[in-house]
């Protein structure tokens, strides 16, 4: 039922893909290496801001690529010959025998088994090895060298090796490996010009290299080929490296602490509390700025947009041109190509927008487009801070220790220790959590982690928690905080028990037992963390931003149409919005599904909130504010809570009893209600099937949880 989605080589859908010839394109150079050798730092140092996430057909794994200018080093820059290559940063791998979907993509890229640009072996391979751990990292190099491709070995972290007194004889190493060997330091920018020159030399079309025929260290070997490779790497290292010992011993005590069961857990807890403190203390300001910028843009649009369309010469080009410009932006972000279909959709929508009544057009722009985009972009600061800190922790070597100490705890629910980091990230936002799940090698473990992550309390749930706790215990901070903590705990319990159950049923199998490299501690690079964060932010905006915009517009349509006839409109302005919402499709759906949610204690007005918060759960607060006749501004002050308390059913009893309020809280702890997360789940699992399953099981869980909560509390007289 569950299989990795990444590779579809040779499938019928691939046969339709055009095979791109390399002859008229830039040479492809692959950057290959073990995890933790600073490969991505080296890519960032070479590519800088030119890097972008590439979509290669047939795979959903992100591959970062950059057009790189390489040149022969010449004293006179006017004489320099240059060449542009496409540098691709492959996922880290330990061996060409692979153990994760990402490694599989890396190995197949090297062998030229993918489609599109990677359908044939690369023009050159740069194998990155670690100068401080040459014998281990040369093992992969031995496998790559045997493929007889034009290969360069880049010995990274040369500065760290020198700092601890290690001396490397590069001439000896070149001779042993039979390929160019370049010492580099990605962090200090050392050796990059030499590496570029070596790439230039290897990718010259007129200098066809002679057929390369390197000997295999496992040729004729009957024993374990891995053992033979390690032995070969040891021999090569012994003959070319004099190991230093400075700087290694001091951190052994730290590692003993950080990997010990009790102290290690305590340290992890402290680090994670620190991360959360950073997220919640630093993200507040940029989030406020984003909200006020979008607020200002909304106000500006309110002023600038025409209030009547009598000036047809100005109005229609504005409406059509604006819509087309928005489509162009979304297509560009989403890398959708303009063809007859995508162009027809854009033109049809632009024409439809132009014929909308002018008030609706204004509302569409201000509430649908600007409001919808703001709803997504507001989470960007939290996501960026989270990725920044986690990248620093990963680069420092600490994250592997965190996964190590959590292994024992997480195994009890059938997940590996590595699932801990995504679960923690999900407490800020499920999206970076799901992206962080890529570090989990085993596909089933990764899938279950992704499926249960959105049950953990993300920051978008906070407005709902605040509303319900204020409703119940507005004047009792003690009880309010207990309820708040209980909501968090419910999310954690639900996530862990769902993982346990999924591992017993739909995605069966124990967690892949731990065997994990604990990389040497080193000073992380701020530049690398910044570039990684930028990369993730773009992926987030591109993937979630475009689709959520579409859904925001659709939801706006559902809450706006059909329009209530003027004659039926109530005179009170406050009541008009509520009456219109009741008349709209969303309102009607709320009434139709009222019997479904009645056992949970919800009336049709709450149901409208559940419908409109389908794409973003926090929307329920502003929707409740509208349906109860306060207008959107009402959600911001205490007015909503008082109004909700005053609401009564036809029989005169209050709507928001303790039972209904708790039921609503339980529903929003457990329900999916977040479209960007669904989009990212689809992206990371490769199919809408798992996103749909996630939505289904979470909604059922939420319904069941709320039902039990409401019925139990009602029976107890609350």
């Amino acid at each position: 039922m569950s299989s990795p989605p990444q590779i579809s080589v040779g499938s019928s859908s691939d046969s339709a893909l055009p095979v791109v010839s390399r002859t008229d394109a830039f040479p492809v150079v692959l950057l290959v290496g073990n995890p933790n050798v600073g490969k991505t730092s080296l890519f960032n140092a070479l590519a800088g801001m030119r890097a972008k996430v590439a979509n290669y057909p047939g795979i959903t794994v992100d591959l970062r690529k950059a057009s790189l200018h390489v040149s022969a080093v010449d004293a006179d820059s006017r004489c320099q010959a240059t060449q542009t290559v496409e540098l691709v940063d492959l996922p880290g791998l330990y061996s060409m025998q692979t153990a994760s979907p990402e490694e599989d993509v890396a190995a197949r890229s090297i062998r030229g088994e993918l489609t599109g640009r990677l359908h044939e072996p690369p023009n050159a391979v740069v194998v990155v090895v670690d100068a401080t751990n040459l014998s281990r990292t040369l093992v992969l190099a031995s496998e790559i060298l045997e493929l007889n491709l034009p290969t360069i070995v880049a010995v990274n972290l040369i500065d760290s090796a020198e700092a601890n007194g290690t001396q490397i004889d590069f001439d000896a190493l070149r001779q042993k490996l039979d390929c160019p060997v370049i010492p580099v330091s990605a962090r200090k920018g050392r050796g990059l010009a030499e590496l570029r020159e070596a790439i230039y030399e290897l990718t010259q079309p007129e200098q066809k290299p002679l057929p390369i025929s390197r000997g295999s260290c496992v040729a004729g070997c009957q024993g374990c080929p891995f053992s033979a490779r390690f032995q070969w790497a040891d021999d090569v290292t012994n003959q070319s490296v004099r190991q230093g010992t400075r700087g290694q011993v001091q951190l052994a005590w730290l590692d003993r602490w950080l990997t010990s069961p009790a102290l290690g857990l305590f340290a992890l807890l402290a680090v994670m509390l620190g991360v959360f403190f950073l997220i919640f203390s630093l993200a507040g300001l940029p989030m406020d700025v984003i909200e006020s910028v979008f607020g200002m843009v909304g106000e500006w649009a309110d002023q600038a947009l025409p209030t009547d369309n009598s000036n047809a010469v100005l109005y229609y080009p504005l409406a059509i041109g604006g819509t087309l410009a928005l489509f162009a932006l979304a297509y560009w972000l989403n890398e959708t190509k303009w063809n007859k279909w995508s162009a027809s959709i854009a033109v049809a929508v632009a024409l439809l927008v132009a014929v909308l009544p002018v008030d609706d057009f204004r509302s569409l722009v201000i509430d649908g487009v600007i409001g919808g985009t703001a709803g997504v972009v507001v989470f960007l600061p939290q996501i960026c801070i989270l990725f920044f800190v986690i990248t620093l922790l990963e680069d420092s070597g600490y994250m592997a220790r965190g996964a190590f100490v959590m292994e024992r705890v997480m195994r009890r629910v059938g997940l590996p220790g590595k699932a801990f980091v995504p679960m923690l990230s999900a407490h800020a936002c499920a999206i970076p959590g799901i992206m962080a799940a890529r570090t989990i090698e085993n596909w089933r473990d990764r899938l279950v982690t992704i499926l249960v992550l959105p049950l953990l309390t993300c920051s978008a749930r906070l407005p709902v928690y605040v509303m319900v706790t204020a409703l119940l215990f507005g004047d009792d901070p003690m009880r309010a905080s207990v309820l708040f903590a209980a909501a968090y705990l419910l999310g954690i319990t639900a996530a862990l028990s769902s993982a346990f159950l999924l591992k017993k049923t739909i995605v069966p199998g124990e967690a892949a037992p731990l065997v994990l490299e604990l990389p040497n501690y080193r000073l992380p690079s701020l530049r690398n963390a910044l570039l990684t964060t930028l990369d993730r932010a773009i992926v987030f905006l591109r993937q979630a931003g475009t689709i959520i915009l579409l859904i925001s517009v659709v939801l706006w349509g559902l809450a706006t149409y059909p329009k209530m006839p003027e004659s039926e409109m109530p005179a009170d302005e406050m009541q008009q919005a509520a009456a219109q919402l009741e008349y709209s499709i969303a309102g009607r759906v709320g009434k139709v599904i009222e019997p479904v949610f009645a056992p949970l204690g919800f009336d049709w007005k709450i149901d409208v909130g559940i419908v409109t918060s389908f794409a973003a759960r926090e929307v329920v607060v502003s929707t409740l504010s509208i349906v109860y006749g306060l207008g959107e501004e009402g959600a911001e002050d205490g007015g909503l809570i008082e109004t909700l308390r005053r609401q009564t059913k036809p029989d005169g009893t209050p709507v928001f009893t303790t039972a209904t309020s708790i039921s609503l809280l339980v529903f929003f702890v457990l329900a999916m209600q977040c479209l960007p997360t669904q989009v990212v789940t689809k992206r990371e699992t490769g199919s809408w099937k798992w996103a749909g399953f996630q939505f289904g099981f979470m909604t059922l869980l939420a319904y069941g949880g709320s039902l039990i909560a409401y019925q139990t509390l009602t029976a107890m007289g609350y």
Partner: protein
Amino acid sequence: MASVQTSISVLAGARKGFYQCVDVDASGQNAIRLKRLGICAGRVLELVGQGDPMVLQLGNSRIGLSRQLANFVSIAPAEALLPGPVAQDALCS
């Protein structure tokens, strides 16, 4: 070359110290995951932290290893086989 007839045990129950890996009895993905990190026949490893998971030192690399996988790894005390790791000739004979 010395053979491995003396005191072979399983890594899962070992105390701290130097050992030589004699055999890895895992299959499929587990075998690849162990061997590609250097836990394979003939390699010397040091058990530096007991428990589940345990911590191994292999050359300059530190590896965290669950007891479940350590059960697949047969070891002999390194002294019985030292000096030097098993030569490649012995493995490839």
